[in-house]
């Protein structure tokens, strides 16, 4: 039993720190830390910096041009990147579609798409969810009908994260109506410039635009854009779901959030005293601190298992649940710390050049509301409990 990183792992961490120190643009880090929206060019810039270093495709094997990191290296990189305020690398092309192509794609598809993902030529978004089919993918209704060398796609996708920045979307579509609902699903690559596609923004609870609806009306998709076999989409989707999910516990985000809240609680004044001197607030914070320290170890334990078995265990659902609960608790503490000053609409939090809340916390309430999503998407915490009950407890 040894919780310490090896010499080699420590050296790697040093290397990552040095890289972030030198290469992460300060103006991007500031935005990330304050929870402000990143522009597409912010993200492109950061992707390019990572790509130049060979670290963009952090989950790719060496054969495909990845750095060949194991779970521990990936963990170290993510932890350090979060701590430094680096933007999250968009997973849709790099961590999702790329793995589908490596496993199910043709050589041509791999050769065509993978470099474009690395270079940022293609920005992918994900077309899984539909209105009325969130966690229940088997009830998909978007259809793709084969005619000659193309499919005709009709239907609607939703919750398409950052679709506004993308030029391509990978979709699950229904290619067969009879038989079991899972059996008639295919995995299709669609150019968002195709005629018949309309993307509409969805405004979220706190007022931001990060997800979209995508409408397909008689959209023609070349048959060569099918990945895998027709009606193999369910298998592909399951592969992606059970495929290693990196940083599912979101430790890095939580560590950063904890440090921010702690600093805030030492700054905010309630009457003559610091907020941290209020025992009720300090107790809330200390409770989350202990939970977070425990989760770090839980995460390492499961990483260590994954390292050994080459596959993450079913326990990743546990990380998802605890990880989201802890992050949400920290977002909750940040808004609480501000009292009434958490109230102004984010855009108004600087009123006439007057600070109402400290600038890096002006979005505290917005972030709290926005992050209610993290216990819902990617399989809600209720779904995760169902999975754990069945798979680990065998109930």
């Amino acid at each position, binding site marked *: 039993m040894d919780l310490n990183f090896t010499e080699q792992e420590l050296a790697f961490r040093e290397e990552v720190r040095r890289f972030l120190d030198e290469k992460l643009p300060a103006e991007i880090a500031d935005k990330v830390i304050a929870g402000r929206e990143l522009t597409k060019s912010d993200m492109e810039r950061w992707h390019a910096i990572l790509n130049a270093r060979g670290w963009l495709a952090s989950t790719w094997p060496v054969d495909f041009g990845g750095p060949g990191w194991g779970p521990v290296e990936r963990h170290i990189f993510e932890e350090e990147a979060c701590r430094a305020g680096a933007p999250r690398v968009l997973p849709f092309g790099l961590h999702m579609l790329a793995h589908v192509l490596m496993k199910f794609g043709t050589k041509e598809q791999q050769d065509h798409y993978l470099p474009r993902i690395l270079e940022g030529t293609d920005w992918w978004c994900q077309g899984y969810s539909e209105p009325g089919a969130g966690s229940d993918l088997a009830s998909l209704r978007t259809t793709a009908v084969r005619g000659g060398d193309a499919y005709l796609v009709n239907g609607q996708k939703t919750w398409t994260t950052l679709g506004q920045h993308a030029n391509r979307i990978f979709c699950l579509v229904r290619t067969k109506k009879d038989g079991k609902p899972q059996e008639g699903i295919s995995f299709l690559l669609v150019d968002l410039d195709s005629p018949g596609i309309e993307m509409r923004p969805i405004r979220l609870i706190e007022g931001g635009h990060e997800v979209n609806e995508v409408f397909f009306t008689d959209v023609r998709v070349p048959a060569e854009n099918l990945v895998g076999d027709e009606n193999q989409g369910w298998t592909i989707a399951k592969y992606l779901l059970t495929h290693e999910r990196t940083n599912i516990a979101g430790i890095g985000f939580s560590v950063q959030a904890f440090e921010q809240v702690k600093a805030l609680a030492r700054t905010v004044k309630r009457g003559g005293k610091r907020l941290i001197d209020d025992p009720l607030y300090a107790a809330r914070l200390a409770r989350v601190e202990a939970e977070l320290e425990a989760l770090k170890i839980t995460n390492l334990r499961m990483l260590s298992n994954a390292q050994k078995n080459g596959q993450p265990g079913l326990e990743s659902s546990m990380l998802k649940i605890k990880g989201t609960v802890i992050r949400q608790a920290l977002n909750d503490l940040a808004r609480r710390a501000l009292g009434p000053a958490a109230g102004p609409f984010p855009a108004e939090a600087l009123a006439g050049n*007057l600070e109402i809340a400290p600038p890096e916390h002006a979005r505290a309430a917005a972030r709290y509301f926005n992050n209610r999503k993290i216990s819902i998407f990617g399989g809600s915490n*209720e779904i995760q409990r169902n999975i754990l009950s069945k798979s680990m407890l065998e109930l």
Partner: protein
Amino acid sequence: MDFETSDDRRMLADTLARFLAEACPPEKRATLAYAAPFHDHEAWSGLAGLGVLMAFIPEAEGGLGGRGFDVMTVFEQIGRALSPEPVLPALMAARLLLAARGDVDGLMSGEVRLAVAIGEPDAPWDLSDIATRAERNADRWTLTGRKSVVYGGNDADRLLVAARTGEGLSLFDVSPENAGVIGYGMIDGGGAAEVILDATPATLLIENAEDALNDALDHGRLALCAEALGAMDHVQALTLDYLKTRQQFGRPIGKNQALQHRMVDLMTEIEQARSITILAASRMAEGDRARSVAMAKHLVGRVATLVAEEAIQMHGGIAMTWEHPVSHYAKRLVMIDHQLGDTDFHLSRLMEDLRA
């Protein structure tokens, strides 16, 4: 012992509900509550026309109510309809004007909108932390300090301002034109303002105003509890309906026993929140007003946040959108805890009592 609502109050509630349903439907509210003046002047006049503001004034002073249950009746409807009208500042101003034996006619008719400026950046909730100072030159008072997140301050005709005068706190009447008033909208809708006072001329309304301020604050807290209650009832109904209609894996999601039990717990918590608010409403004129209100605001603060979070979680993504009413109710339910003392602030007051 009688838990029936009186006929008068039931009539007021019904009238108000009908009015707000028309004046403030969800689609309209999602826009107007977020654009200056962050409420609707027409709705405001309409409310006043219904006599809603008179419900805060005792009959002896020309009003129609003035009891805790009157406050509760009005604010349950405000909460149910998620109205962004600045009724809370009007209630608090009414209590202060009554204490000052001032004229309440303009307030009751809705013609004069008042805001109450107590909290400050480093003193959000506790009177003893107030730093704004009043100074007297001959018979003229001036105020210096900053009042923060003054609800309704963005659109008020007069400001009632608490400031320190030597030993104690006094209450002053300030014209917004003489102060630096910087208005803005709130994340849960409605407007507020920062009020910068820099040797701003002011009229003394009450010397030694602690009692009057506490009375106004406690009435405001009761109002917020009732508002939360109305909002929770509505959110509970929306969530129940969703659980019954939304299908997943071939059956309504409400067939999931885990959600059923959570929904039962929510219902139970909401009933407890209702009970403690009823208790507080019944104690507004009694010696234990402060304790009852602290218990109510503490408990409601906790439950309202729980209801907001659970309602979103059970709805799933749909309630995360601006378009869906639950998102707006959830924001209001959470942010109510940020007004006039949060659940921990009021728990601390109860802890003080236990120690004494």
